[in-house]
């Protein structure tokens, strides 16, 4: 059996954050080259907070400039920065109590990569980046002696909403039963798993029978028919979200393949309209030529019988199965 691909994709979304009455001015300040703290009784909190951390009272916005100098209260060293860290060379993360503030800000200290150049009690100073967006990453800190004088041009509008591309890379091998199912599709076969307890056939198999709570393995696998019955369908008008590539309406249906007890869901039909579909309709899979089949979209959670293995599903012309007989397969 050829080696199947690993699951490898990046889940990412450009989330937004509403900054509100206290954090908004703080981020606006950073963009404009100033660090602001929030008054809370006789203390100044930096980073600012919306609520008094001791009494939980709402803090009315009352911001005051702090820094740009401050003292390292404690620190840790990042010897191997990742792509999302603020520097591409080793640096320190430190608790920095800025001049005029009563609480410490956690931030990055750049010593040119030298771990010997950071210490508790040392003085540091804020440096602002050339490109600023109203983000906590607009600023960083250096040892006071290394600080350069900066002239910062303030921006126009206050920062009220920020955008953050948050991503997570998923890289894992296909589970063995998923890999055998995917290989079956490449071979033009639909592989299911027959429960050793109930005899029910699941397709695709999950590697276990969730009703009887027993494992199912390769020895429980059976090839099932590629002819089946439509048990449910709708027409999707694709919602246009980040990463969506579908633009036109299409039919999505569930098909109960002959000899199975659970429908395969999410089968897409491009050449029939919703009015031409019926619950109970008999359909057969018209496979792509073997060299045109792909199972790239199959991962450990999604991907049942993807379009990348079939040309279309076509009606067999057999009489419909009465809908009443499909009541317990209505997904």
């Amino acid at each position: 059996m050829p080696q199947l691909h690993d699951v490898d994709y990046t889940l990412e979304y450009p989330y937004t954050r509403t900054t509100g009455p206290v954090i908004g001015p703080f981020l606006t300040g950073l963009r404009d080259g100033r660090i602001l703290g929030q008054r809370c009784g006789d203390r100044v909190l930096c980073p600012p907070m919306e609520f008094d951390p001791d009494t939980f009272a709402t803090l009315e916005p009352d911001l005051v400039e702090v820094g740009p100098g401050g003292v390292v209260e404690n620190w840790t060293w990042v010897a191997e920065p990742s792509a999302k860290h603020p520097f591409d060379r080793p640096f320190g993360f430190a608790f920095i109590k800025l001049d005029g503030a009563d609480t410490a800000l956690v931030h990055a200290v750049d010593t040119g990569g030298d771990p010997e150049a950071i210490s508790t009690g040392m003085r540091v100073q804020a440096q602002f980046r050339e490109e600023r967006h109203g983000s906590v990453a607009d600023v960083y800190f250096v040892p006071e002696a290394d600080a350069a004088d900066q002239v910062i041009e303030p921006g126009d509008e206050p920062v009220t909403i920020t955008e953050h591309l948050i991503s997570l890379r998923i890289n894992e091998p296909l589970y063995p039963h998923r890999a055998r199912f995917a290989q079956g599709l490449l071979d033009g076969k639909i592989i299911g798993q027959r429960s050793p307890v109930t005899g029910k056939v699941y397709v695709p198999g999950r590697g276990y029978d969730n009703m009887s709570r027993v494992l199912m393995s390769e020895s429980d696998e059976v090839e099932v028919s590629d002819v089946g019955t439509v048990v449910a369908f709708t027409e999707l008008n694709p919602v246009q979200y980040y990463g969506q590539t579908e633009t036109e309406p299409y039919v999505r249906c569930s098909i109960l393949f002959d000899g199975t007890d659970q429908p395969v869901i999410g089968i897409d039909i491009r050449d029939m309209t919703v009015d031409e579909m019926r619950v109970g309709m008999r359909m057969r899979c018209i496979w792509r030529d073997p060299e045109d089949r792909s199972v790239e979209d199959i991962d450990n959670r999604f991907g049942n019988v993807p379009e990348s293995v079939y040309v279309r599903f076509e009606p067999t012309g057999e009489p419909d199965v009465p809908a009443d007989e499909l009541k317990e397969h209505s997904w």
Partner: protein
Amino acid sequence: MAPRPCAVLGIGQTKYKRRRDDVTLDGLVREAALRALEDAGATFDDIDAIVIGKAPDALEGVMMPLLSLCDALGAIGKPIHRVHTAGSVGASTAISAVNLVESGMYDTVLTVAYEKQSEGNATWALSGGKSGGQGAGGTFAPWIRNYIARSKAPEHIGWMVAVKDRLNALKNEYAHLHLPDISVEKVRESPMLWDPLHFLESCPSSDGAAAMVLGNDDIAKKSGRPPAWVISHAKRTEFGQFPGRDTVRPQAGVECSEALYRKAGITNPREQIDCAELYVPFSWYEPMWLEGHLIAEEGEGWKMTDAGDTELGGSFPVNMSGGVLSSNPIGASGMIRCLEAANQVRGTAGEYQVPGAKISIGHAYGGAAQYYAMWMVSSELNPEL
């Protein structure tokens, strides 16, 4: 040992909106909490424990939100719990809070649920971040088609529900959608999203939070606020997919309502319950849940809708507040159902009050219609049925 009686003593909601661009997520959640405290005549000092709920973290991309919400909810030095059961989470959260009071562990509990949908995209999140996602509407539409085929319901039923809930919402200042010109024609002519569901038969995407203060019988007596006694509650779960699953009338939903009614001694829900807030994110789920939760016989739910029984002023009003069809901060939507049920039996529902409502239910479902959470509240601890 019998459970301690538990009552809703304060409720609080934010205005539901497409985007609340004036507050942070923390500020939004806190707004509802402060209103619930005010309504209960309480402060954070009176709270013994906090239970929060929201839908999947992927909706806003904030992992473990309870970390930052500790400050906003005055939870420092107190226990905070987070509940998660997909779309039903708001009701599951409320019930989890009730459990803490009934157990005798805590006297007064604050429970809050929320979503700030504008910070992410629900369909993206429910699609695992991949193209070709069908979202909730695309998942439920085939089951709705099967319900229609099975029950022989006429197609206007869905349109009627869409109009009824939006007209109710006009009486609720907190509702997201205020559509005074809504009509069956407008619903029918609105774009088809997931056949047979039109745009106006679908819930909006909202920012918002809802909160309640719950207390035991001693606290209820001291508070002097009108109590909504939680006289019964139930949760049930089933697999999303298994051989023999009936997605139109899920077994877990039937069993959840059976358990709810049994505990309260309800033998005829249609007659003994005055009104209900059911989780109806897509119009057709009103008749589907009337049947699936045993308020109507199988195949008869749509006839209640058709006859106007579920209207405000009908014999069994449903979603007096405007329902999920009018406001949908997903994680909060189930809690809003529970909160609005309490609002009715406390007699505080204002323009959408059902006169004399004594017993009401709040309901939510989640996932692939596989998680159920329901509660029953009454103006009396031991109501005569």
